[in-house]
């Protein structure tokens, strides 16, 4: 009989309407500025630079190797390598980025910079409220705005952060062992000459293979 399907549909919508008043599942809207959805740990929005310690200028992990700049699919990262080396937070001589800009308006949040970074220095942030009226410069973030502390990283991605800490600890142990061996060898070879404190160069660090990851090679 014609009309029965329509009647069934009407009953179904009415049931759904009444359901919205009793069943939370039927009214899933989150009223955004007041309420917020709990972000999952994997949530990624835009990259930021991790720094150890409290001073972003000093503790930036980035050594300006420019891999992420090269790999970034939309080319939104811009790095100028420093001419000199400076002592980083770990007390090693390192290059550092003289300029590190990310254009968030171009960035597509793909996380490839994070994956290719051998130094655990660039990570994805969960913040997304960056709207600005300035079309051209408002979303061009320099290294001062990009730098966020390791504690922040631990807060937003605890599991990832623990993993990356483990990776770094292993690397550091390796580098130290190598530095020690180097120092001993050098001390043996030129005992008379006062050798400068051997610092783990970025190359040395990069040669150290990361457990659970591929061997980083420098495509430069």
């Amino acid at each position, binding site marked *: 009989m014609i009309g029965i*399907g*329509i009647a*069934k*549909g009407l009953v179904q919508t009415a049931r759904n309407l009444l359901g919205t008043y009793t069943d939370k599942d039927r009214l899933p809207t989150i009223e955004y500025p007041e309420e917020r959805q709990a972000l999952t740990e*994997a949530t990624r929005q835009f990259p930021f630079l991790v720094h150890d310690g409290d001073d972003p200028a000093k503790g930036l992990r980035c050594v300006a190797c420019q891999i992420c700049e090269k*790999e970034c*699919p939309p080319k939104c990262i811009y790095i100028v390598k420093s001419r000199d080396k400076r002592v980083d937070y770990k007390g090693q001589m390192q290059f550092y980025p003289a300029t590190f800009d990310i254009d968030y308006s171009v960035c597509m949040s793909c996380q490839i910079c994070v994956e290719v970074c051998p130094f655990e220095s660039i990570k994805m942030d969960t913040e997304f409220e960056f709207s600005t009226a300035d079309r051209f410069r408002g979303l061009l973030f320099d290294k001062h705005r990009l730098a966020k502390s390791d504690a922040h990283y631990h807060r937003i991605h605890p599991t990832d952060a623990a993993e990356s800490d483990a990776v770094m600890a292993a690397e550091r142990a390796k580098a130290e062992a190598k530095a020690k061996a180097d120092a001993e060898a050098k001390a043996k070879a030129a005992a008379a000459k006062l050798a400068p404190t051997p610092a783990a160069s970025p190359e040395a660090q990069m040669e150290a293979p990361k457990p659970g990851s591929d061997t*980083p090679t420098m*495509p430069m």
Partner: protein
Amino acid sequence: MNRPTPESFVVRPRVDHEGTELEGDMLEVSMGPQHPSTHGVFRMDVVLDGETVVKLKPVFGYLHRNHEKIAEGTSYLGSMPYTDRLDYFCSLTNNWAYALAVERLAGLQVPERAEYIRVITAELTRLQNHVGLCGFLLQDMGALGTPLMWAFRQREKVLDLFESLTGARMMCNYMRFGGCRCDLPAGWLEQARTVVADFPAFLREFETLLSGNEILMARTQGVGRLSPELAVAGSVTGPMLRASGVDYDVRKVDRYGIYDRFEFRVPLGDHGDVYDRYMIRVLEMHESLAILRQALKGIPGGPVIDPKAKLRGFRPKPGESYGRIEGPKGELGFYLVSDGGPNPYRYRIRPPSFINLTLLEDMCLGRSIADAVIILGSVDIVLGEVDR
């Protein structure tokens, strides 16, 4: 009204679908690119006689960004996030198709767990694509958003799963050559099982609302018929082909990944009209749920990426490969030519929504303009993929 007709716009003998000769003045309507039901910036140059379509030429390219050219200047890995943006409804199947082509090119093996994760995510993608399409189709039919919003309500749950796995709801960028980017987070499988367990109840609700509805039947049955012969010749793939009664599912034919381990059926339509296309998608959702139940039960432990896979400095040997999967919209293929360099020499996507549009005019001729809208809806296009 006396504009000269373009060469390609010569109107064939004008008859409606019942064979009646039409002899009214013709009205040329440009539907789109800004039109509520063209699913994006898509245009149909339609010549109408009364309300009957006597000529229809799809026009697109408004979203063309030459993705293939961009990919030639980007590393193999760098194209992966761009594949998300092809058919933005189904980023994970796009990822998979691309990864499959590259894996063939580079000879990478995918660990078993990764294969399971790929099947699970791909079937979830199919679920959310089909449910979204059913909503959009009914929206085109004038059912003012209710089915669409219900579909979206359910789709959100799948997207929640994607977010907790990949970090993004739609632009997942998850598969890697030789596996997946990361392992499943704790509790994800449980969450997925809940979603899969809840889905049939939703589908029942959806079907009560619409599948028996007289208006829906009257609007869709016999509309936009596509004969199996024409569908095969026109390279139509996916649910549209199966709605015409052709048994062809790349999951069964190529048995890529580990699809040969799962029991599932391929629903076939007999009429090839819009109603069949709608129902085939509903039935495919049931089959996807069956695959998901099996996959979620049988997923083994282990690594999720081939240890040989290289993230940086990935250079496959010179040669070419074509990899295809059964995407939710049809056969999604990637054709890659490598010259040994870090970037693909040629990177081609076989976009199902683009190719399924080839026969749009054949389906629409002689039908009314309201039918043209739902026929377009039933083709299931996403302009990000059509225009690339």
